[in-house]
């Protein structure tokens, strides 16, 4: 009995070691390819940066009326392009690494699965990037406009807009990655519907008196020339 257990354990250990030994060349090939592509990416990024600086890319792109810097003011166009080049090579490296992993090991079907998923990941990354930039841009626009309209809840409004765009982006990204399936759609619908309903109830029921008082006050307020009219700016 004891002998049979020992033999069976030894067999399973052997299978594990065999499996590890089968995977090792694949892992090694993956790491090697990744290192090579990291080096290529670094060299390509350096080259692109040098070329862009030589042709004064930043100055040229900033002279237009609607430019990249308007949307992402903290990064110069050169840095953005350099980073895009670098990460493109890294991504290619990962994909080639996965292929070599599959070729060097006995495992099959991994690269087919990964390659099929890559367009989704790229699409999701683009969605996330634009969602974040648009969210920040809109939030800042709303904040400034609301302040200039003398709205005391300007910050609240701007934060609301930013999170609205971020939540929408997150839902789109998850949907694009096919993560969560129908749950994301459902949760998003419930969340948005909930927010709108809550606002409607708050204004319609909770703030009914406040709104009516405010309207009455506006109706009975004597007409008075605003300060701006007595001042002439131009």
């Amino acid at each position, binding site marked *: 009995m004891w002998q049979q257990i020992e033999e069976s354990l030894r067999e399973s250990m052997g299978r594990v070691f065999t499996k590890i030994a089968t995977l090792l060349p694949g892992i090694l090939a993956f790491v090697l390819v990744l290192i090579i592509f990291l080096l290529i990416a670094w060299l390509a990024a350096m080259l692109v940066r040098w070329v862009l600086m030589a042709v004064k890319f930043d100055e040229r792109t900033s002279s237009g*009326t609607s*430019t990249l810097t*308007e949307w992402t003011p903290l990064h110069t166009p050169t840095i953005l392009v350099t980073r895009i080049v670098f990460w493109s090579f890294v991504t290619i490296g990962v994909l080639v690494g996965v292929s070599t992993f599959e070729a060097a090991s006995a495992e099959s079907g991994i690269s087919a699965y990964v390659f099929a998923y890559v367009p989704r990941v790229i699409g999701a990354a683009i969605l996330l990037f634009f969602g974040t930039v648009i969210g920040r841009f809109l939030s*800042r626009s709303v904040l*400034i406009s609301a302040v200039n309209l003398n709205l005391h809840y*300007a*910050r609240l409004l701007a934060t609301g807009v930013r999170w609205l765009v971020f939540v929408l982006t997150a839902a789109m990204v998850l949907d694009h990655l096919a993560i969560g399936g129908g749950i994301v759609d459902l949760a998003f619908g419930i969340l948005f519907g909930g927010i709108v309903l809550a606002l409607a109830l708050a204004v319609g029921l909770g703030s009914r008196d406040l709104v009516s008082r405010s309207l009455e006050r506006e109706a009975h307020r004597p007409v008075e020339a605003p*300060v701006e009219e*007595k001042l002439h700016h*131009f």
Partner: protein
Amino acid sequence: MPKSDLADEMKAEVQQAGPVDLLLGISGPVNVTDLRQQAPSLLESAGIAGAVIAYPDGGGREALNSDSDASAAGFIPYSLTGSDPATLPWVISSVAQKAICSLAVDLSAKVCVVLHGDLKMLSVERLQTLTQAIHEKQCDLILPIYQSRKFDGLLNHSILAPLARALYGQRVRYPLAQDFGCSARMFQKLSEFTGGRERSDGSLLWPATQAAMASYQVCQAIVDVHHQAQTEGLELSTILTSLVGSAFAEMETYAPYWQRVRNSQPTATYGKALQQTSDGDPVDAKPLVESFVLGSRNLQEIWSLVLPPVTLLELKKLSRCTPESFRMPDELWVRIIYDFALAYRLRTINRGHLMGALTPLYLGWVASYVQEVAARSPLAAEQRFEQLARAYEEGKPYLVSRWRWPDRFNP
């Protein structure tokens, strides 16, 4: 050479009638009937012969000298290309001014006078003032000094005029005047204006800057005219974006020039100083202060991208002042404008956002000014503007330093 849209046939017709001594251009929508009735007799009374009057027209050619042969003037309609009604009035006016200058070049005129569409400047005395300064005093550009009350033209007095004075070294009261007269070489220069880069829309023509760049003689004439503000229905941030944004764009274009200019020079001024009859209605500064405080509470994050810490600290202190004791020092205001100009150049944030973030600060300055001059005479208010203009000049080394080394540590 820039060409106007004047048809060759009409050009030949005008030149056949004799040399064009004066081109009188109207730079905005005008009542053509009034113009045709008033202008010839006025020009005749002013002793101006060989004048041609250009006015904006939607289309169709008006007959030249159609009124009578005895008429002293011919009329030329010109089209305002790209003058969308939604465009800001001063942008349309600027396009028209440039078109009139191109027309003057085409007609080989000797003098060109540009007038606002309300025709308030159309009088014998004023026309003579503008033309004589060019003929007799050898002025290349003559700009008016308009009659204004204490609370009129605040954007001009707080930013546009003192900034232009500090940058280009010419003490001009209205650098973005609606009316002006110019010599042949000046209108040639103005007709060539493109601003050094592609300016598809919203660009403004700054005659005084162009004259300063070319070292032409600039003069001023005091006139008892007050044009109606054209800002009804426009938001202040839109006005700031257009006018101050244009001034900042000019700064960017002409940086190599203005960095060399050290002090401002007085400008020859003609005409009698006007007696201020009215102080203007009293203004309550409290809502203005509240706008500033609201901005200070909410826009710190944006201001901190543009302004150095010491300025932010001073603004924070200001926001804690009571409305009655609210005063914005000139040095602080000047540094704010210079830092915003730098941020405009560096595109630290979106330019529309930048000008939006300047609006509460501008209202803060207005509140401070309103309270300061409330009890003072109009003359004292004028002196207050002079004091501010000097602060702009004194602060210029700060701007030059920041402009040249924007990444240098600035506490």
